[in-house]
């Protein structure tokens, strides 16, 4: 394998790790906010009934 191929493999791995890490943070944040909103609505409805 040439030096260029090693370079590509190393950066693809690092870019992939960085992208996955960043995406995971945003995705988890969105999911948590949605769950919190629905639970808060359910709790609010129970309290008002």
């Amino acid at each position, binding site marked *: *394998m*040439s*030096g*260029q191929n*090693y*370079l590509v*493999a*190393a*950066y693809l*791995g*690092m870019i992939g*790790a*960085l992208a996955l*890490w*960043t995406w995971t*943070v945003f995705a*988890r*944040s969105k999911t*948590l*906010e949605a*769950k*919190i909103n629905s*639970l*808060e609505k*359910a*709790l609010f409805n*129970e309290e008002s009934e």
Partner: protein
Amino acid sequence: MLGLFGVGLTFWLGMEWAPSVSINAFQAPDAQRIFYWHVPSAWAAMIAFGMLFVASIIWFFKRKEWAWRLHVASSEASLATGLMCVWSGCIWGAAEWGVPWDWTDIRLNTFAMLTLLSLYLVLGRRSQPDGIETRDTFSAFGMYGFVLVPITYIATRLWQIRHPGPVIATSEGSLNSDMSIVLLIGAISFTVLIIGHVMAGMRLTKLEMHLQDLQTRFEEESR
């Protein structure tokens, strides 16, 4: 976002602007450009391990909620940057040394142990119910594991086996000034990136705790 932009700029400068190394001094001179992300990711990992250490101490002795959130966020950050560093190091090792790993090299092995420690903390926390005992156990690992950081730092100064020794801030001053600039931009960018990620991670942990409270309340009211 600023951190990501800086990391992207470092990548572009490292590929396009930074000079090539001597083909006589390296087995794989093209692969040397891996260094522009490898070194800053190692730097960022060390910052994350430092945050993990401080957070573990503060949680263990002062029981501050923010310290636990910092513990969680910094263990995730140290895992991500540690894996980036180990992966790029293995690829460079395969290109330059002909082998991806050397089990006799102190620097490689202590850094790998630090990354494995952060993997244990991330996976362990997800598999255990949250509570004082769980937090104390993981904080103890965060405190005692930090002993590997100074060993990793001085390893190439005391026992240079295969990993190259320091190339900046040394009396030899062997790094070209253009390369130093790219490396500096990389170090600053990765620092900004990791601080941003740790802040986002702390917010996530806060949301997780809030969700846990709401679920408990919901279950109690449903009975």
